[in-house]
């Protein structure tokens, strides 16, 4: 029977099925798993998983964000951000632990906060990215 068990979650949280379209702000203190379509902000204190069938048009913010679907908006992960091979991200991303798998598409700006300083890498052509002594970029 439907509802006999909580689908796909290890605890309380929100699961947006592939047959669901949402408009507005989806906020949950627990994990959020998105298989469907959301137009608006998605916020979690824990993790957000955007699966292959999902499409999010709006900002995404959580401790851990995993993207296997499509996100058209900024992503802020206070912990880890992982873009899977099927993932497509169009927008700026902010995370101190970033993994972009082979095959993933990312078009946007990446910011990596590291303590008080921020390492900011803008998408540039390979020639522009050639390292120079005394560069504006500083890595610690």
């Amino acid at each position: 029977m439907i509802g006999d068990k909580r689908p796909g979650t290890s605890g309380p949280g929100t699961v947006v099925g592939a047959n669901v379209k949402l408009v507005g702000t989806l906020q949950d203190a627990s994990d959020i798993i998105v298989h469907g379509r959301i137009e608006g902000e998605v916020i979690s204190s824990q993790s957000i998983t955007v699966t292959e069938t999902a499409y999010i048009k709006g900002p995404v913010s959580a401790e851990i964000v995993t993207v296997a679907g499509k996100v058209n908006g900024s992503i802020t992960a206070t912990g880890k951000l992982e873009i899977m091979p099927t993932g497509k991200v169009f927008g700026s991303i902010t995370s101190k632990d970033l993994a972009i798998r082979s095959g993933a598409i990312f078009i946007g700006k990446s910011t990596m906060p590291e303590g008080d300083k921020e390492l900011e890498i803008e998408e540039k052509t390979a020639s522009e990215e050639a390292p120079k002594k005394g560069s504006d970029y500083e890595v610690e």
Partner: protein
Amino acid sequence: MEPPKGKVVSRQEKIKDILGDLGIAGETVSSTAARTIEELTHLGIVKGYSTVVAVGDESLVNRIITVLATEKTAKDVVLGIIPNDFESALAKIINVTDLKSACNALKYRKLESIDLCAIEPNKFFITEAVLENNRNYGIYFSKDNLQGKIEADRIVIRPGLEIFTHDRALEGNAPSRFYKWLFGKKQSDIYSSYLTAKKIRFEAENNAAIPIKVSSEIVAKTPLTIHSRSRVLKIIVGRDKMNQAS
């Protein structure tokens, strides 16, 4: 108690005997054409009873909790339940397995505050409500700052306002499901949804009136609003319930 008829009379006598043996005494009333369950519950509250024991199915229990949850003077009244069906969700909530354990639970009077859901204006339920149609239907919902549309034939709402949906049509037709099963092509369940809310409103596509059922009884039709009331009712539960939870 439910109105006595045939077999029910002997069950009621049996319950009275067990309760008598356990040293539990009290007024026993049954609904009649002249006095409904709601009126009898109200009378019990007026008389100052601290405990109301419902003997019957979930439908009867829901009618009693609707009175207990809506009458201000019933705030401290405790509900005991002796279910008809010990395999039911109701029996599982109070953790009783048979008539004897249900009566024993009344004796030991272990209390638990539970959440209830109310279908506006005032249809309370204790286990679950099911918004159901014989085919997939577009259901619009709104909660907090969120609006959405679900394609589903069945939406289950439980206390704490937990909402489960599943769209069977998206799983494919019977041959494709058989093919997946035969070749072990297991797919993760992407067609189920789980949401929580404090208050949610459902409207069906084209303003259709989709029925919502509580214990197989239609209690309302869309559009409808359901809200959650947490820890609104004290019920008597079986002694092992807390141990199981931990």
